[in-house]
């Protein structure tokens, strides 16, 4: 085995801690990216998953958590899953798992969603899923994946039969998501919504806020009032200026 330099050793440790990958996988990814940590993540995530999940085990797992009288995992089952995984139900990693499962609704997993989702990430036991949590959490670092997860969250968190997302739910989701991205204006945004808006959030506004976060600097120097932003975002900008916050 090659004797690694101290810097390289640190990078391997860091990569393993973030992704939960094996030392071998970490070494492969880092070498392929010429020892750049960010590049290594890209290499690692772009590779197809090799593991093949055991369907029978997944069936047993599903049956363990599903409702006794319905073919669906619901609140109690999900709570149990979180207990077994030793994660808080509010943890954002549950959102990532739900995204993999393509869950239609918060707090519900159909058989297809549960089994198909776990297969897609190559796990067939709680232990394996638990071991996978760091790498699932790390997916939020990837811009493209974050973007998909963010937009997935809108329909997932929405009440059944509703077109818009309830304000309190939207605020909760935004706080959860932007804890991962450190948007300086998140607190002002939530405050503004409660003070000035106090209504449900449309899908378009939800999607466009992420564009706003990505493209407009926190001082709003490049904000364009004729830039086709949703009116709510226009109002937010006015709110910031009125209060001397930008």
């Amino acid at each position, binding site marked *: 085995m090659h004797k690694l330099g101290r810097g390289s050793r640190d990078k391997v440790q860091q990569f393993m801690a973030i992704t939960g990958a094996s030392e071998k996988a970490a070494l492969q990814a880092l070498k392929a990216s010429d020892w750049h940590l960010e590049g290594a993540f890209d290499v690692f995530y772009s590779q197809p998953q090799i593991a093949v999940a055991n369907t029978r085990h997944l069936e047993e797992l599903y049956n363990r958590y599903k409702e006794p009288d319905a073919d669906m995992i619901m609140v109690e089952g999900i709570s149990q899953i979180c207990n077994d995984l030793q994660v808080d139900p509010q943890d954002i990693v549950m959102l990532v798992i739900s995204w993999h499962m393509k869950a239609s609704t918060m707090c519900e997993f159909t058989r297809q969603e549960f089994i198909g989702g776990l297969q897609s990430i190559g796990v067939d036991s709680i232990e394996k899923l638990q071991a996978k949590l760091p790498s699932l959490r790390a997916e939020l670092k990837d811009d493209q994946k974050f973007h998909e997860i963010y937009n997935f969250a809108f329909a997932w968190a929405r009440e059944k039969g509703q*077109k*818009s997302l309830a304000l309190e739910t939207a605020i909760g989701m935004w706080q959860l998501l932007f804890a991962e991205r450190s948007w300086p204006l998140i607190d002002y945004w939530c405050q503004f919504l409660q003070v000035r808006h106090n209504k449900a959030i*449309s*899908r*378009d*506004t939800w*999607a*466009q806020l992420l*564009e706003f976060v990505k493209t407009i600097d926190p001082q709003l120097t490049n904000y364009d009032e*004729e*830039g*086709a932003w*949703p*009116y709510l975002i*226009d109002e937010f900008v006015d709110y910031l200026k009125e209060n001397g916050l930008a």
Partner: protein
Amino acid sequence: MLNGGGGGQKKRNTKIEPYRHRVETDPKFFDKSWRKLHDAIREIYNHNASGLSFEELYRTAYNMVLNKFAPQLYEKLTENMKGHLEEMRTCIEAAQGGLFLEELQRKWNDHNKALTMIRDILMYMDRTYIPTNKKTPVFEHGLELWRDTIVRSPMIQGRLFDTLLELIHRERTGDVINRGLMRTTTKMLMDLGLSVYQDDFERPFLEVSASFYSGESQQFIECCTCGEYLKQAERRLHEESERVSQYLDAKTNEKITAVVVKEMLANHMQRLILMENSGLVNMLVEDRYEDLTRMYTLFNHVPDGLATIRSVMVSHIKDTGKSLVTDPERLKDPVDFVQRLLNMKDKYDNIINVSFSNDKSFLNALNSSFENFINLNNRSPEFISLFVDDKLRKGVKEANEEDLETVLDKVMMLFRYLQEKDLFEKYYKQHLAKRLLSGKAASDDSERSMLVKLKTECGYQFTSKLEGMFTDLKTSQDTTQGFYASTSSELPADAPTMSVQILTTGSWPTQTCNTCNLPPEIVSVSEKFRSYYLGTHNGRRLTWQTNMGTADIKVTFGNGSKHELNVSTYQMCVLMLFNSADVLTYREIEQSTAIPAADLKRCLQSLALVKGKQVLRKEPMSRDIADDDSFCVNDKFTSKLFKVKIGTVVAQKETDPEKLETRQRVEEDRKPQIEAAIVRIMKSRRVLDHNSIMTEVTKQLQPRFMPNPVVIKKRIESLIERDFLERDKTDRKMYRYLA
């Protein structure tokens, strides 16, 4: 061979040679010849030409040219003429005072005559030697010598300028001068060459003129009103033009005009136009057509002159208009308000027509000014509608339909200025409804004429519901006739006659549905009508609107007087109660009729408190109506007229809450229109960017109202929400239409 007789004689060739005249050059030839010419020229200049032989002199010159003495001859001629001119100059310079120009003129005439003769004598040289050698022809050469020897001599040149300019100055200050002498002098300068006239006279003339008019304008502007000043300027322009036609070159006219314009008008333009108490604004206010015409005509010569006048006029109209439309006092009388606008428009139309040559740029400026200030008052749409209502009601003093038509055409011009035509439409519908339903419309033809004007201006959609109102009334007549035709046998002989107006929901302004308790006599007929109507119109619903409508009631008062009262439906309900009661309290009336309190109080005030119309008596006699106040028939009621009209509700300008409600309804009505416009645009474009949609929607809706960009944006978001539109996946500013 036979030989001819006589023998061959050779022919002799004879040659005739021309006669050769041997001429030897006489050493004295030139001198002798020139002597002849010299002496002759002297005699010519001394007015003694009559003794000369033209033929001999011509031949002398001719022979000199033939003998190659042309150059010497030309030079000698020059010296000789110069000598004569120098003698003339001495005489001219010696002339005293006023005789200077006369002497100059006399010598000029002499010189011209002499030149004519000399040219004739030297004609052969002019035709041969001079063109060949590119010399100046004799006559022109003589003129040049006059120019250089006399006109531009140091002593004469300055004196000539001074004399001419002094005479012009005296003429400008009122003296009569010898114009003929001026004319011949300036003509002399022109004959010497246009550049001589321009350099030796015109340029100093223009400079001195500029100085003169600069001084005069300074003096006048201090002591004259604007009108007086402009009159003076006009007079000066005329004088200068006349001077040119009298004794200056025609081309000078443009130049001297420019000088006067610059010194008297352009340099003082702002001060004149803005002059306090007499400037443009005062002229406009006081309708001083003559002064305005003069100002327009004069400043037409000035760069930016008309633009400045137009600008000041616009400012004044906007200020005046703004005062008019924002004066709280004016807002109390909508009809007067609009009449003042019409008067103001007439006033400026007249000024532009009479004084400003119907100048298109001024008409456009007037139109944009009106559009600017009329929309400063967001009640203008309502007031214009009320004005039309006033004109279209019966009893209006308008003498004839032609005058009415003229007034309506003028009102349409004001309408054209409105930016919120949809707000006007809403009010117009309300007011039209009241006219039609109260029977107050003066003339069907006039009403329809107005509708045609509105349709022409804004299109079919704008007036379709209004036309629906007329259709409803026509249909109602037919229905009522049908009702009586089919049920007359079922009705008691003394049943009241009823006329019903059936109003299609949606065509008429929204009305709260107020039903009161109708008198039994009315109920029986109305229920029969309901049965008839619903029987012939399956699926319809019929709701009575008792807050509208009128009634004619025959009354016999206690004193025996009989009258026919024209009252509202509510008033009828109240009056009928007194057939079976002598005295009723307010509370009792309210309970019996179920008329809403506000309406009922207004109704009772009309019946009991209006002087000359008091068919009821109220106890106590106060304006306010309390629950325990009592009412009874006024047995002492008298009136000169048999038919007495108790006041009905006339269209009034809205109270503030009503106004707010109307505006909110208009704003709500705009949303679907904006949305429909967006859908139309996207359906045809399929893909379009945000700013183009904003522009396109605004353009489409502008004839009716100016859409609010924020509302457009919200409508776009709503359409996205409802899956009519989506954002492009790669360009968030681009929208796609979803079929």
